[in-house]
């Protein structure tokens, strides 16, 4: 059962990722990314990390994707030119991507991590639930937590400065 769910979610994640890069209209790319994110949330659930899966659905598939859809609707999906600044880029890029995948896979699978071939140790019932993650965030990882909240505030201010209409532009 777990294997079936894994392969369904893996096909969804990979198909969504391929759809993102294959679609010519950015709007469809965003929709494929949502499929990809939901499949990843299912994979996180299979890895017994309920909080990360919930955050994935609420924050990513909910909030971030709404932002993308708004901006795509505002800017509009323009066609991409066929002009290539580097000759043969269309053929070199898949070659490089395959080489990167082979390199990553070899690096991980030939490492001396003995537990890689297992399903991980047996964990207690509350593994990865919101209470456990919240306790870690507010006790052991308080400083990274606060730093990331300051970063979010800075990003919000930066986005307003970048996207706000200047006075002279209006006039």
């Amino acid at each position: 059962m777990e294997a079936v769910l894994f392969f369904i979610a893996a096909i969804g994640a990979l198909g969504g990722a391929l759809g993102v890069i294959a679609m010519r209209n950015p709007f469809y790319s965003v929709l494929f990314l949502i499929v990809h994110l939901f499949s990843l949330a299912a994979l996180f659930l299979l890895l017994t990390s309920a909080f990360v899966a919930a955050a994935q659905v609420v924050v990513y598939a909910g909030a971030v994707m709404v932002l993308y859809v708004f901006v795509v609707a505002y800017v509009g999906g323009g066609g991409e030119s066929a002009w290539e600044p580097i000759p043969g880029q269309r053929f070199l890029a898949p070659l490089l991507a395959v080489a990167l995948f082979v390199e990553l896979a070899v690096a991980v699978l030939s490492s001396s991590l003995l537990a890689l071939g297992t399903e991980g140790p047996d964990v207690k019932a509350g593994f990865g639930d919101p209470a456990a993650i919240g306790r870690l965030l507010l006790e052991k990882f308080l400083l990274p937590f606060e730093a990331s909240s300051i970063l979010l505030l800075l990003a919000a201010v930066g986005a307003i400065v970048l996207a706000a209409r200047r006075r002279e532009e209006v006039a």
Partner: protein
Amino acid sequence: MSIEWYIVLSSLLFATGVLGILLRRSPMVILLCLELMLNAGNLALVAFSRMVGNEQGQVFAVIVMVIAACEVVVGLGLIVAIFRRRLPLNVDDLRELRG
């Protein structure tokens, strides 16, 4: 499923994101491919956290999500600013900063 399946899937998704960044010219799609790569990293973090049997990797995955949200906000702000100035939304045309 053993952990190595998740890790191989994560490297496959990362390579897909890299392929998208190399192939596409629209800054919007390049941002989406960055999301793909960040999510592949997240999958690896959560898989390793399950392998060790420790939740600390999941905390890092949550923080990576926050960083991804920041990146999206600033990136989309840049795209809106580019659009407002009526510049082409194509990374090959926006090459003034290239040395």
